[in-house]
């Protein structure tokens, strides 16, 4: 089974092993046909309509804006509707350095995102701390406080690189198991103990 992304050959993606591993996990779970088809339809919708949270702290944010602007135009892929409210966004592009003061804010934004939610770490700073790794006030990668789905290295990454990263996110979404996977319904009492 291949994960198809329009106009991109499967071989052109770098880390197919990871996706294949996900596919194998999916196959191993033995979903029945009906649920599997429903999964596919829903994942088709989800992967083609990933709305980013407008979140940017530094240089990468400008490249993120270029991504939305006329030359690169992320609207083509359905990433168009950048929402300012985390309630309506699907993923947060952590574009830029995250510092100690920002960490609780970002965590709160992440917590407030509606499920299913994804995190893309954009640029050296968000991936690992980048040139500011040794600083007293900078996080060594946003994965210290959030689970990250896709890393896009670069300082800042070119918009093409961001597209590549977002397509990887789409692929990841496409091979997810929605029923019984993504759509788990936690009980409020169990989590919050109220």
């Amino acid at each position, binding site marked *: 089974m291949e994960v198809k992304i329009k106009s991109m050959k499967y071989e052109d993606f770098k880390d197919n092993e990871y996706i294949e591993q996900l596919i194998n996990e999916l196959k191993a779970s033995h979903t029945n046909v009906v649920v599997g088809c429903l999964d596919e339809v829903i994942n088709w919708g989800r992967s083609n309509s990933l709305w980013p*949270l*407008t*979140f*940017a*702290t*530094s*240089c990468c*944010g*400008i*490249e993120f*804006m*270029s991504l939305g*602007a*006329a*030359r690169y135009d992320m609207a083509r892929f359905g990433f168009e509707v950048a929402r*300012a409210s985390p309630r309506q966004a699907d993923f947060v592009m952590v574009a*830029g*350095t995250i*510092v*100690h*003061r*920002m*960490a*609780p*804010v970002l*965590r*709160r*934004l992440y917590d407030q995102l509606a499920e299913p939610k994804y995190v893309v770490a954009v640029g050296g700073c968000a991936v690992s701390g980048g*040139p*500011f790794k*040794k*600083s*007293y*006030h*900078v*996080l060594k990668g946003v994965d*210290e*406080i959030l689970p990250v789905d896709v890393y896009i290295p670069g*300082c*800042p990454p*070119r918009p093409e690189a961001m597209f590549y990263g977002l397509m990887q996110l789409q692929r990841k979404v496409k091979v997810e198991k929605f029923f019984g996977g993504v759509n788990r319904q936690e009980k409020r009492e169990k989590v919050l103990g109220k």
Partner: protein
Amino acid sequence: MANIQQEISSFLPEATFVEGTILEVSVPDAKWHDLALYLHDKLHFDYLVSIVGMDWGETMGCVYYFTCTADNSQVSVKVETADRENPLLHSVTDLWKSAYLYEREVYDFYGIRFINHPDMRRLFLRNDWVGYPLRKDYNADPEVNPIRLEHEAVDDTTHAIVETPDGKLEERTNTIFAPEEFVVNIGPQHPATHGVLRLRTSLDGEIVKKIDVYCGYVHRGIEKLCESLTYPQTLHFADRLDYMSAQQNRHAVCLCIEDALRLEIPARAQYVRTIMDELMRISSHLLFYATFCMDLGATTAFFYGFRDREKILDIFEETCGARMTFNYYTIGGLMADIHPDFQRKVKEFCAYLPGMLKDYHTLFTGNVIAQQRMKGVGLLSREDAISYGIAGPSGRASGWACDVRKNHPYALYDQVEFKEIVRTEGDVFARYMVRMDEILESIHIIEQLIDNIPEGDYALKMKPIIKLPEGRYFRQVEASRGPLGIFIESHGDKYPYRLKINSACLPLVGGLDPMCRGGKIADLIAIGGSLDYVIPDMDR
């Protein structure tokens, strides 16, 4: 300059002087406020450029840089205190309003508290941060300041040390927001704060009553990092400060180091640097146009600004290999020669852009709604602009001719002919128009230079290890958003003892509160957009 020295020594005999490119006066703290008053009122040093906090080992203190806006003469004052446990200095917030943020910054980094400063809170770091990071004896152990995921406590009051008339010091608290006020956080994650600035805004209906600015949401500790890097290594941070004036920032650092080394850089490099600086300015102002229009709700204008900015990025990319962080200038010249297509592309662009600007004006500037949103909003008088240190295009919109390219020319700015755009209205519209006109002026500068780039070396041969002679150096360039100053104190090592970046954007937010008071929320957004601050530049 000798004149200033005489006047100061006649006023304050105990002052000592160090001659340099900028005269440096040392005074004991007890006399400092008197001298400040004298400098401000009698010698008319009305523009406080920078306050550099310093830790000299035994003593701690500040170096102040002043400019007289009438004749652009400069002077610096060094004040120190030997008490490292509880360092106290006198505040000058009563004379220069820009000192309000600068002194808070010094307190944040060095723990020096200022007497009579109304608001001694931390500026960049969390209010529960332990230690003062720029002190030389700072404990950098991550255990001391771990990543905290709980939110910092809300502080509605400030601490202040007030000197009573009989000379005693008293701790006081000032209230920022009363409990019953309707306080909204605009930012850090907000589409219109251009990054992660947090404005705590007290509202009365739609009307802004007070704004309290919180910085530091992208404070990356660049100044501290620089202290452990060699001079060529410090350069790359400059690109990441105000990424919209990456070239100019790097120019400032290079200039400061080249000045200290007394280097004469090749003419070819000078030409290319000047052209690159101006291209960067155009790109920045185009981004300003894009984001400002977006803030006012004219979404399509955003795309036009970005479309044309891409053309400059193409030019940059061919020569520098990057779209944003260029790493192009280096000490003694440039990293690489220009691309063979550079001149042709730049000329094409210079011919292309003015036509597009006309489009911009028809789309946005001439629009009735846009005019109403901009005119008469966010007024800033010339005096206030100087006092708050709001220079750059925003200052020029208030009638203050503060262009460093004219006042203290560097590179080729004394050889090219260009107008300094100054408007007198001081409102959002003026700030917008100054930038739009500066684009044309930049094109004019580029057109004068592009055909005359001389052949020859593009860089001096430099030794791999650069050591700066001992001393304090301060250089400014006109970045896209105003004067960016680089202060270096060298103790003769290959590392700077202290490298301070005097941001062009930090003073801008200082003026937000008085400009926005009484306006609507929509005005706040328009004013913020027109000031065009870049947060990583002010947070550093």
